[in-house]
């Protein structure tokens, strides 16, 4: 989220598209109902199903899953054509005026540089025209046909309401009603907020879905303001934190990168990370990259990270591919290239696509280690559960170790919420039986491994034996020790370069923020964006003062938000060029003539004069980006691509199958149904229900009472056509697998007319499996295709093709 849950109360229009906030985030959705009740805000829901969010919406429009970009580009087209643009904002705070260099172009669904063989682009032409002064060329008049604004206008022109209806199935009048309501938020005193979640991410073009809305929000001037923003409603209690801390193949905490093998040494690595400003006077914050990196390495390897060894640069592994994401790992596993696999509080057999492929992979491991508070299907993938998990245990040679861990109620520490608040919590119960914390387990593994390497030697033991592990009890580091380490501390006294008698930083003290980090090894800090969370003043994440000056919804004294306790990102953009709030009734910060003050921590240097420094300081442009240069693999603008399995060919680019640069593993092409395949005529989608949390709460009696048994949702029309009874059994199958479920026949799903073809939707909630308290069922991933988003490999769970028939239920054997 750019903003915070509590800020949603400040909005005038909530657009829930690509998510179902009432269903998945009920307590956050409260702030929507508050905005409605107190500000007269309106709620629009755009979704294939009339869902729980829609039940309290002011306006609902249906859309076919996987067609969001067409809808969003249609909205942008509508706003541009009808002058629903916050012009001042667009000109000053976006890259609308930037001129794109010759050579870049777009035609028939593809940008320049496409290589069909590699399924990738050569993105060299996707950049700005750089002037002789070394800065990007801009055209304040927006006359240059190659300025971003004109390219955008041209790009979205085809997405007329008629085309939107053809692709999305949204009736034109409904689309126009939504467009009209959205357009009203282009005035500086009206804001719209976007609440989205996996409904946008779980597509082969998920990142571009989100970009589409972000672009719209920029055009309406809704980024950085109260009640605005792009609000990703994250799914798990600390998935934001895990991402921030870079527990991914290609990340270092704080969104730094693991080097690739092209970056053989530290100098090469840093050479592409200069982040020189593209406009005069602009602050480009990533210029501090080196400080964050070196502090991280000091935290990681302590005294072993020295200037001489490039801070331990070679202790880090180097990537040969973009990422070893879960899809790639399971593909490798299936091909016998993985021997050991650890699952920490995660149930991939349920959570990733194509269960059959996942199970095949797990069966090829030598050892699977599962750490979890609960029984999981993954840990028991070798167990025969009849039709629900038909295997022969004797055929599976994988050894499985299942380790009992504590849960939230039994451990201490911080979690990062969707609004980037780091909130500390305390344990309330004793662990059951022999359950242990994950930290203890990781420490034990590390110590044992280190011991083996010390004793026996072996392959490159250096990073293991040199890992900085100076905890009071190395076998069980405390949460406070680790939190202090992430925040960072001073390793050696630092003196003012101008006045060497003046000590700036004192060894042994906690850093007060990332601004104090240094690139000479005198500071350590595990995660620069978290710096400030545990300072000399104490544990800032444990703060519990819920005062809220100005009723702004900021709560600056409650916990700690990264970065620097800032609650709304890009909040400088809430003010005009003079530094006055666009909407004085919703002041966030303002320029008082000398500095920025207000209800939030300014997202700009406190004394950076308005008009001189652009508000988007993490970008070298100083502006936001309507056109993203070469930063996304699948194009600088979003393009409507059909899902890999689709009822119709792409109307705007019939020759393009799916997202043209999404990665598909060789084996998986044959597991996709053809476009318009009559054997799989219905558009399937998966989603969660408010009564359950993923595959956890089926272990919980109360939630199993509230939704005891698996079902699928279909329209009355499809039920009639197929002879399916309300509450009767159905079998649903895709090219990859099948499941049995009860039929919920509902008026809330309607067939759609897609480019002249009637398309029925089959909705598949995800929550069932073969362990737990609820009735046994099938995970939805028996059906879903093994393909991810082109940029970040989020699997395409939301759009695929299935067939359905009435059934007598699963044969229990």
């Amino acid at each position, binding site marked *: 989220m750019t903003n915070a849950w509590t800020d949603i109360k400040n909005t005038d229009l909530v657009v829930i598209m690509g998510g179902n906030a009432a269903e998945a*985030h*009920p*307590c956050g959705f409260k702030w929507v109902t508050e905005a409605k009740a*107190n500000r007269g805000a309106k709620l629009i829901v755009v979704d294939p199903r009339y869902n729980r969010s829609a039940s309290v919406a002011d306006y609902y429009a249906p859309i076919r899953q996987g067609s969001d970009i067409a809808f969003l580009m249609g909205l942008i087209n509508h706003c541009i054509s009808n002058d629903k643009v916050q012009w001042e904002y667009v000109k000053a705070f976006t890259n609308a005026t930037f001129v794109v260099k010759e050579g870049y172009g777009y035609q028939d669904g593809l940008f320049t540089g496409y290589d069909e063989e590699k399924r990738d682009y050569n993105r060299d032409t996707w950049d700005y025209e750089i002037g002789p002064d070394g800065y990007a060329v801009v055209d304040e008049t927006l006359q240059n046909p190659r300025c971003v604004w004109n390219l955008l206008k041209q790009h979205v022109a085809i997405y007329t309401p008629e085309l939107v209806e053809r692709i999305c199935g949204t009736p034109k009048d409904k689309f126009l009603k939504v467009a009209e309501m959205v357009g009203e938020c282009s005035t500086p005193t009206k804001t719209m907020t976007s609440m989205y979640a996996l409904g946008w991410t779980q597509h082969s073009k998920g990142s571009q879905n989100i970009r589409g809305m972000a672009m719209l929000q920029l055009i309406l001037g809704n980024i950085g303001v109260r009640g605005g923003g792009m609000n990703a409603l994250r799914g798990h*209690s*600390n998935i934001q*934190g*895990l991402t921030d*801390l870079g*527990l991914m193949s290609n990340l270092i905490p704080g969104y730094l990168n693991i080097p690739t093998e092209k970056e*053989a040494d530290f100098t090469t690595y840093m050479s592409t990370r200069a982040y020189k400003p593209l406009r005069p006077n602009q602050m480009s914050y990533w210029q501090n990259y080196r400080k964050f990196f070196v502090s991280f390495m000091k935290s*990681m390897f302590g005294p072993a990270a020295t200037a001489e060894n490039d801070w331990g640069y070679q*202790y880090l*592994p*180097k990537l*040969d591919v973009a990422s070893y994401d*879960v899809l790639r790992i399971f593909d490798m596993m299936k091909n016998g290239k*993985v021997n*050991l696999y650890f699952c920490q*509080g*995660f149930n991939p057999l349920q*959570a*990733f696509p194509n269960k059959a492929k996942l199970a095949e992979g797990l069966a090829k491991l030598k050892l699977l280690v599962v750490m979890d508070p609960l029984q999981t299907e993954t840990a028991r993938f070798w167990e025969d559960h009849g039709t629900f998990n038909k295997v022969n245990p*004797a055929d599976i*040679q994988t050894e499985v170790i*299942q*380790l*009992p861990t504590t*849960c939230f*109620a*039994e*451990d201490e520490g*911080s979690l990062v919420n969707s609004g980037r608040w780091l909130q500390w*919590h305390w344990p*309330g119960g004793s662990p059951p039986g*022999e359950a242990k914390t*994950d*930290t203890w387990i990781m*420490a034990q593994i590390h110590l*044992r*491994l280190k011991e*083996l390497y010390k004793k026996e030697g072996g*392959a*490159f033991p250096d990073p293991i034996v040199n*890992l900085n592990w100076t905890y009071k009890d190395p076998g069980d580091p405390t*949460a406070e020790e*680790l*939190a202090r380490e*992430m925040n960072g501390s001073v390793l050696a006294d630092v003196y003012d370069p101008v006045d060497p008698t003046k000590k700036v930083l004192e060894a042994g003290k906690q850093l007060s923020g990332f601004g104090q980090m240094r690139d000479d090894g005198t500071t350590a800090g595990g995660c620069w964006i978290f710096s400030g969370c545990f300072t000399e003043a*104490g544990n800032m994440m*444990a703060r*519990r003062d*819920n005062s809220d000056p100005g009723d702004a919804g900021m709560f600056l004294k409650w916990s700690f938000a990264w970065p620097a306790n800032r609650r709304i990102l890009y909040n400088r953009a809430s003010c005009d060029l003079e530094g006055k709030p666009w909407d004085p009734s919703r002041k966030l910060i303002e320029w008082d003539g000398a500095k920025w003050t207000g209800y939030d921590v300014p997202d700009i240097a406190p004394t950076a004069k308005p008009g001189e420094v652009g508000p988007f300081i993490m970008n070298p442009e100083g502006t936001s980006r309507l056109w993203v240069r070469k930063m996304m693999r699948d194009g600088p603008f979003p393009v409507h691509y059909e899902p890999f399995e689709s009822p119709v060919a792409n109307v705007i680019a019939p020759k393009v199958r799916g997202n043209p640069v999404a990665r598909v593993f060789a084996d998986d092409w044959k597991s996709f149904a053809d476009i318009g395949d009559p054997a799989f005529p219905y558009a399937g989608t998966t989603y969660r229900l*408010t009564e359950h*949390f993923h595959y*956890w*709460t089926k*272990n919980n*009696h109360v*939630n199993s009472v509230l939704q005891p048994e698996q079902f699928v949702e279909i329209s009355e029309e499809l039920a009639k056509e197929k002879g399916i009874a309300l509450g009767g059994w159905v079998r649903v199958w895709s090219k990859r697998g099948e499941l049995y479920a009860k039929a919920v026949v509902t008026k809330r799903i309607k067939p759609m007319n897609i480019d002249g073809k009637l398309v029925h939707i089959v909705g598949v909630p995800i929550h069932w499996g073969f362990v737990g308290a609820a009735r046994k069922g099938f995970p939805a991933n028996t059906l879903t295709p093994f393909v991810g988003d082109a940029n970040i490999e989020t699997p395409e769970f939301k759009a695929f093709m299935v067939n359905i028939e009435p059934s007598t239920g699963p044969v229990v054997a």
Partner: protein
Amino acid sequence: MNMELSRRTFLKTSGAGLAGTTLGAFGFSEAEAAVAAAVKPFHLVNTTEARNTCTYCSVACGIIIYSKGDLRKGETADIVHIEGDADHPTNRGTLCPKGAALRDIVKSQTRLTQPMLRKAGSDKFEAVSWDAALDKIARAMKDDRDANFIATNSDGVTVNRWLTTGFLAASATTNETAFATYKVVRSTGILAFDNQARV
């Protein structure tokens, strides 16, 4: 850290202009209420409170765990109830159907209580000690790493990676656990490192 519970409430209502609830006003004085009452006793009395955060989604609702026994005094604590924290700015004491049933997940019948091992080809888990389990894991890691570690690529560039072992991290562990996990996993050269963020 400070566990002193703030009793502050959000008395400011946005928009409605209603005064704070006068709930406290119903009922007679406490002294008179000592007469035999037919109302069930309030079962949170004499429990220990712990501030926590809901383990499910990223709304991160504040919760209070009520237990018999106080961990801070070194006692065993048995959780009797979990309820929303009215002081929390986001949820204001409310909880969703999962959050309202948090006690049930803590006390689930399918919670794990001891390390278990499933041997190759077996159809069951067998209990093992922590030491045996951890030693086995460390040994398996060492053997696999030593056998498959790639120090340099075909161009002779130092790459120091280990691709035959993967680690899938959690989504509900604390930042502190995550950081400890990061350090341990990264130090081995594992690249097949991912988390729940993608799904």
